[in-house]
């Protein structure tokens, strides 16, 4: 017997014919239920009360304990220093009082240097993440992973055109703490698609390798704005991708399926990385404040989203800001919103409530176009 088939028009007509299902509760009954629930909820203790009191209790205990622990540790250091002095005296050094003063001042200066260099390191760390995305399109897209191959980190090599792929991989590992997926394959961007060519004898070794290769290809295609991904061997045959079988085409990254959060690599570099997410743009933007597995919030808690609304190609985001710890924190938060908006198909973001309305990076009183590049890095 022939299987019945449907076209889009028929399906639409069938759905339109679905009947109206009426609410059987009366208007008065509904209102009474709502009123009752609203009154009940007014009397309820807010959900945050218990955790808040618990947190305050922990802080109070810490305040009481830390000074005494600190004092006892200081005592240990002092007694250790005393022992060293004693040892040096026992060794028969004829240090006079002036010499002692010199050695004390040398010790102090060494400590100062250590502290200064630590502060400098932190400052350099902050400056290194200056812009995490860019509207310029002249870069070389690449995709790496954290050392556990769990987090995908799309980056853009700026001015890396003359550097060999293998060297970039090495630099990514040494300097940025990121690893490249295993496997040799080449990319050829075409007008609307990305073609990936594998060696004839290619076989993905294990599902982890296969997944990292697929993610590499998908995020490269996303960077190239490709609508289709074709994969083939040098002979033009389907590629053996382990559990996926013989494959000629891969899905592209779906719109509205990722948000961008902060990730710190093994070398302490910070990147904005895509994290899978299912939900509306309102939920996606609010999720930027959450610490998820392996990644951290890209928008600080001191910022509240009052309204997030998409209109055609523009996303409106109204915020209430309490304070930003640093200009870097602010830029990172804005960039994560822009990248998330881009993932949801928006072309620009109009922010409201950011003060001052302009800084060295953005003019917040005008719509900001979503970035073309992500995580620009230098070889």
């Amino acid at each position, binding site marked *: 017997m022939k299987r019945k088939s*449907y076209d889009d028009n028929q399906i639409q007509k069938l759905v339109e014919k679905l009947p109206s299902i009426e609410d059987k509760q009366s208007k008065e009954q509904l209102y009474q239920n709502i009123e009752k629930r609203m009154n009940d909820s007014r009397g309820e203790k807010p959900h945050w009360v218990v955790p808040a009191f618990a947190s305050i209790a922990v802080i109070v205990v810490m305040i009481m304990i830390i000074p005494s622990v600190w004092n006892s540790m200081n005592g240990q250091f002092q007694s250790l220093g005393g022992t060293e002095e004693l040892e040096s005296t026992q060794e028969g050094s004829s240090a006079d009082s002036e010499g002692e003063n010199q050695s004390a001042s040398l010790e102090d200066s060494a400590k100062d240097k250590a502290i200064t260099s630590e502060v400098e390191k932190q400052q350099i760390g902050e400056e290194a993440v200056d812009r995490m995305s860019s509207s310029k399109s002249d870069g070389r897209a690449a995709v790496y992973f954290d050392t556990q191959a769990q987090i995908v980190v799309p980056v853009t090599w700026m001015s890396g055109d003359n550097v060999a792929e293998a060297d970039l991989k090495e630099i990514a590992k040494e300097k940025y703490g990121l690893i490249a997926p295993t496997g040799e394959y080449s990319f050829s961007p075409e007008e609307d698609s990305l073609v990936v060519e594998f060696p004839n004898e290619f076989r993905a070794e294990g599902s982890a390798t296969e997944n990292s290769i697929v993610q590499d290809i998908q995020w490269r295609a996303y960077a190239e704005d490709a609508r289709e991904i074709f994969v083939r061997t040098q002979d033009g045959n389907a590629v053996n991708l382990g559990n996926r079988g013989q494959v000629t085409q891969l899905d592209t990254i779906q*719109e509205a399926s990722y948000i961008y959060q902060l990730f710190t690599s093994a070398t302490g570099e910070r990147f904005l990385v895509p994290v899978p997410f299912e939900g509306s743009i309102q939920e996606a933007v609010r999720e930027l404040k959450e610490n998820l597995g392996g990644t951290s919030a890209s928008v600080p808690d001191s910022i509240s989203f009052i*309204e997030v609304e998409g209109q055609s190609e523009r996303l409106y985001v109204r915020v209430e800001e309490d304070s930003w710890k640093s200009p870097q924190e602010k830029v990172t938060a804005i960039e994560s919103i822009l990248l998330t908006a881009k993932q949801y198909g928006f072309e620009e973001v109009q922010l409201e409530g950011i003060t001052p309305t302009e800084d060295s990076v953005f003019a917040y009183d005008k719509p900001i176009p979503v970035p073309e590049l992500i995580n620009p890095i230098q070889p």
Partner: protein
Amino acid sequence: MVKPFFDELYEKYHQDLFQYIIYMVKDRNLAEDLVQDVYIKTFKSYDTFDGRSSEKTWLFSIARHVTIDYFRKQNRKRKRVMDFFDWGEKGEEIKDKSPMPEEIAVLNDEMQAVYRALDECTVDQSSVIILRFIQNMSIQETAEVLGFSESKVKTTQHRAMKALKKNLEDQDEGGVQREA
């Protein structure tokens, strides 16, 4: 103070709102509870409504969030149960089955199949189908309710139609095999 506002919303949108929710959750009692949540959230957040979108799309976007929150809670519950009993993949197949509303139960097999096929769509796909074809909303209104771009609505609609088509044809084939 809330009553006149409730009256106005009820007269203008209640049946459509209920319709959207019941087609999403497919359970009358649950839909009655969720529609109450929608009104409560609406009353609490009316101050933030600035008229940039229409009152209708604003109300429906609240309804969407309420239903998504419900699905999330259900998923978390289901996951906890699955973890506890270690049902693995089979647990995913266990779905809540609610009796079909009588308005649907009296329809012919094909229409009942369409109603069932909506279950095979993702939450986003069902939302688009219900808003576009049952609520007769435009692409732009649907985009406002869902917080999508218009192109995202079109893509989701296309994928939803594909999912419905596949499911209807599968159901049809299943029916034929059973009859044979």
